[in-house]
């Protein structure tokens, strides 16, 4: 399962030229407003005809301008959640949902998941903004696509609803093996979902690769915003404790996280935001933070402003910590310096844990 994209086209003032490979899982497109994300996704879905380019999905050539080949939109089997919902105004919610579906077998579960079961007899005109977004997601899911393309699908949704939908998308990714092309501004969403990350800046790919690596690359921190930078640690569930904490093994030791679903041994991806990491030279005692790992400073990356991005190796993994320059100097943080990283259990949960 894979998607390979290589397109170029002119869009008003913007010269779009983007190439990337999306392996299995979720490939996130991340970039500023106007960078060209929607345009890329439109080209993949066949709604935009790039001047030149090639798009291949699971071995099926969807577009090859050089050969004059372009599979029509309705044969691409790409479910698209549009940035604007684009519900059919003349159809009730139920008919909208079932528009691309073979049957209504999955209607019930998906409606329950999205909290739209009660809206089925409504017309789209009588829905709130978030309700429209959820129906649009359901409609794309129900069309049984080979690739799911989602353009800021959760932007109109509240936190709770996101937390309901994200695990479902994870399950789609993992169980149904459905590749997803995901456009979002929310680093938390991307960190949690994305296996691959494609950073787009002014119509070009700034960097692309495994999400974990890119999210913890100190030089990319400015891209995600200083508050958003962080690392993704691979882990494995060890045990569930009675007080609601899940013990997770990472290469540097054990972490205690708020309950994570999954059996023992199940692999996990844990995002640890750089700003949630405190560095202590001595192992702190009698503090509320449960998670303290020995680490070694490997690099410092000085940005603008008062912050410094510190990259640390903890076990076999890399972590990022964002501290003030003042602290970095006071603690004498230089590459090679041994220290401890302190993280609050609650800081990583529940948005930051995804199934690996």
């Amino acid at each position, binding site marked *: 399962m894979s998607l390979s994209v290589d397109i170029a086209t002119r869009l008003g003032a913007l010269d779009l030229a983007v190439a990337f490979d999306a392996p299995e899982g979720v490939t996130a497109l991340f970039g500023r407003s106007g960078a060209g994300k929607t345009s890329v996704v439109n080209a993949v*879905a*066949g*709604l935009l005809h790039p001047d030149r380019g090639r798009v291949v999905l699971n071995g099926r050539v969807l577009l090859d301008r050089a050969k004059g080949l372009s599979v*029509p*939109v*309705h*044969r*691409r*089997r*790409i*479910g*698209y959640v*549009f940035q*604007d919902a*684009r519900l*059919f*105004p*003349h159809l009730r919610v139920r008919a909208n949902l079932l*528009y*691309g579906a073979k049957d209504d077998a999955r209607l019930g579960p998906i409606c329950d998941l999205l909290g739209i079961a009660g809206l089925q007899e*409504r*017309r*789209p*005109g*009588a829905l709130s903004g978030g309700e429209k977004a959820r129906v649009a997601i359901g*409609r*794309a899911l129900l*069309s049984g696509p080979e690739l799911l393309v989602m353009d800021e699908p959760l932007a109109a949704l509240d936190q709770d609803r996101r937390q309901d939908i994200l695990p479902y998308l994870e399950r789609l990714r993992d169980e149904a093996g459905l590749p997803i092309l995901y456009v979002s501004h929310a680093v938390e969403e991307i960190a949690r979902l994305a296996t691959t990350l494609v950073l787009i800046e002014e119509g070009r790919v700034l960097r692309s690769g495994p999400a974990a690596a890119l999210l913890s690359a100190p030089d990319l921190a400015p891209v995600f915003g200083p508050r958003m930078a962080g690392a993704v640690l691979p882990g494995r569930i060890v045990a569930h404790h009675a007080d609601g904490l899940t013990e997770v093994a990472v290469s540097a030791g054990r972490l205690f996280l708020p309950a994570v679903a999954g059996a023992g041994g199940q692999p996990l991806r844990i995002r640890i935001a750089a700003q949630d990491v405190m560095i202590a030279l001595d192992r702190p005692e009698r503090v509320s933070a449960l998670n303290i790992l020995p680490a070694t400073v490997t690099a410092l990356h000085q940005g603008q402003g008062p912050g410094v991005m510190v990259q640390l190796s903890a076990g076999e993994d890399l972590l990022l910590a964002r501290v003030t320059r003042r602290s970095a100097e006071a603690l004498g943080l230089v590459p090679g310096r041994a220290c401890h990283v302190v993280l609050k259990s609650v800081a990583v949960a529940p948005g930051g844990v995804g199934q690996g």
Partner: protein
Amino acid sequence: MTTVWPGPEEWAAVLLSLKVAFWATLVSLPFGIGMALLLARGRFPGLGLLNVAVHLPLVLPPVVVGYLLLLALSPAAPLGSALASVGVVFAFRWTGAALAAAVMGFPLMVRAIRLAIEAVDPGLEQAAATLGASRLRVFATVTLPLALPGVLAGAVLAFAKAMGEFGATITFVSNIPGETRTLPSAIYAFLQQPGGDGAALRLVVVSVAVAVLAVLASEWLARRMMRRARG
């Protein structure tokens, strides 16, 4: 003769007009929709000329249209005799009156439908395509339903035009009571005679009454459709 209530012959003209207008509208509707779609979305050379051709019945005097129909479809003409051999006869039949009415109303119908099709948000059609709908299905399930007010408007215009059409009809299929003598033909006949005004007026009143009913019914339908579409 001075009673306002129409006599049996006049009733026959009313019923015939309704029949002609009904079938003219109904049968031309699919063609009107198809042509509107072609004009709205087609991309091929000659589209401009096709568009002109559709407008011609409006630009030409009805008598000319009737004459051209006569030339093309009289039993003596090749096309007319070919059609007759497969059982399709227009000459001196109410079907011919319906054809004339349909041709005259066609530009009105096509314009209204085309306008409505062009107003449909292409984003919704794209969305339908991403959900796997073929062009045909997109048209049938998204474009057409959203253009329905325009289809209805086009049908009403064509129906009204068919109720009033006279020049092309009488030229093409004559004025045979019970077969091709529609309301306007009957009115015309009365107006030709000195002193026929009274009878003509009575039929005008009937025409107006029919029009009132037809237009009110279409409005009611349109409002229902609107309410459905806007939720």
